[in-house]
């Protein structure tokens, strides 16, 4: 707060008041935004802990009177919840492993070396990452169908890799570019280290925070997918949790199951939120590691 002479045209009180008024309006608006952002989570959580009787009440009850887990039990019965979770976990983990490791190799070469065709390869990867999935959906569907891979883990992993690989490659390229000085490999090479062992023994170990962050994002992308799994899975026991929740919606129509519906949403979101928190930590570490060495 500095008061100056030129405020003669505007008395300092009014200026101060205007500032206070602006801050108040901003604070109120921010509170509104916060309600908009958080209200749905509250509504999901509270609905999932309500009994059937409470969920049917009209107008809705904002604060559960009895804390009940009956919705969670019901959710597990309406759809084969555990099986769907296992399907999602397995396919997302396999996708993460494949796309992160291949992306790390490719991104490293693109980030740290110049070689004929490097820009073209980068452009192809960027283009694939940017263009919406619907433009690849039908051909990949028919290819996987032709290979007999509908309703299979392999089919799903292939489809997931199609979007998570370019994404992981682009983030990792940025990470490899910004995190350590060029001299890092030069020194290693002079010391008689081969290109590949420079990557494997020197770069990879210090890049673990970045790689974990990227792997988390790859996992979340696959875990959250609906578009691909909705077309590739038609048989019950192979479905992923996202498709399961969608089925739930179709059956639920009536409000009676809304609490179980929200319980299944809670159980689907919790793993994602936990993973995201972990990735956030590593992202910060990744950045600071780069800053210290750069």
């Amino acid at each position, binding site marked *: 707060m*500095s008061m100056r002479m*030129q405020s003669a045209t505007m008395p300092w009180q009014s200026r101060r008041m205007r500032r206070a008024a*602006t801050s108040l309006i*901003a604070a109120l*608006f*921010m509170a509104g935004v*916060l309600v*908009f*952002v*958080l*209200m*749905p*989570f509250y*509504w*999901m959580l509270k*609905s999932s802990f309500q009994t059937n009787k409470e969920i049917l009440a*009209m107008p*809705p009850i*904002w604060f559960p009177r009895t804390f009940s887990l009956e919705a969670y039990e019901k959710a597990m019965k309406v759809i084969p919840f555990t099986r769907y979770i296992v399907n999602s976990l397995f396919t997302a983990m396999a996708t993460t492993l494949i796309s992160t490791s*291949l992306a790390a*190799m*490719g991104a490293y*070469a693109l980030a740290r*070396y110049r*070689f004929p065709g*490097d820009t073209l390869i*980068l452009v192809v*990867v*960027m*283009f*694939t990452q*940017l*263009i*919406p*999935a*619907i*433009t*690849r*959906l*039908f*051909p990949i569907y028919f290819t996987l169908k032709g290979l007999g891979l509908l309703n299979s883990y392999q089919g799903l992993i292939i489809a997931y890799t*199609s979007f998570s*690989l*370019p994404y992981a490659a682009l983030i990792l390229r940025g990470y490899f570019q910004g995190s350590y000085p060029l001299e890092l490999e030069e020194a290693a090479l002079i010391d008689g280290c081969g290109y590949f062992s420079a990557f494997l023994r020197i770069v990879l170990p210090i890049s673990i925070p970045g790689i974990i962050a990227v792997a988390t994002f790859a996992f979340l992308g696959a875990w959250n997918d*609906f*578009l691909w799994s909705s*077309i590739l899975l038609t048989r019950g026991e192979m479905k992923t949790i*996202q498709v399961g*929740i*969608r089925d739930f919606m179709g059956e639920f129509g009536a*409000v009676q199951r*809304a609490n179980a*519906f*929200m319980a299944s*949403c809670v159980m*689907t*979101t919790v793993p994602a*939120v936990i*993973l*995201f928190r972990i990735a956030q930590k590593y992202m910060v570490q990744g950045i600071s590691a780069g800053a210290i060495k750069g």
Partner: protein
Amino acid sequence: MVRRKNAFCYLMVAPMLALVLVLGVYPMLQTLGMSVVQYDLMRIAREGTPFVGLENFRQIAAEPRFWIAFRNTLVFVAIVVGCVVALGLFVAQVLNMDFRGRGILRSLILVPWVTPPVVSSAIWIWMYMADRSPINQVLMSLGLLDAPIRFLTDASKVWGPFSVPMGAVSSVRIWNGLPFVTVMLLAGLQSIPHEVYEAAEIDGASGIARFRYITLPMLGPVLSVLVTLLAIGGIGHFEMNYIMTLGGPNDLTNVLSVLAYQSAFTFYRFDLGAAISAIILLSTGTVAAFYIRAQLRGTGAG
């Protein structure tokens, strides 16, 4: 030495590039191919897939549904990008200030980011149920509303391309997209040196003037990246419009991706679906081309 380096680079890039070509570039070309043949699953056994030139494009252009979806896509992108960037600018400005509880606020704002699109849609479907909507309850008890809003089903009031369901679905996308926009803009704000603002304050620039003449221009690059990414994502957006309304009621929330998906998997007209996808591909591809060119120039990699 150079040869060994190049060999190493190609070996490292090869697996990734092979997969990107097979799972990315080739299917896009196949979609283009599919859009100029007859690919009707009901007739494919008898007639195969004969080349029909631009016939599929002629057919979709003759369908009012296509133009409704086309217009809805543009409106959806405009609403979502406009609102999410405006809101994101505000939230990022607030989070960039020094106050107690800023860390908690930052984490809270991020939560919708990781919420799966299906779950986001599910929560909002539940909150949008006319009879049991907390939103209606609050508005009605405040006396702002006589009858509950039927968020996802009201087709009675339509203002040009805008309608209640369109607003309801767009809000969910805005809700889901806000964290990403905020994080990007916050990073942009933090790269603006403090001295610039201090100098402006000494010169007596008001808050609005500082925003207009310092913040906005300095955020320019981040904003253009953001708007481009959001526009490309918006043109191809599928999940929320499909899950919440199936494009209805009366196609009020139907967008190109949903129409393409329905043409293919509901009506077995993969040719028409491919033609719509081809339009998405060409429009987003054009935007992407400019974006990539700008990016490569910016980093000096091109």
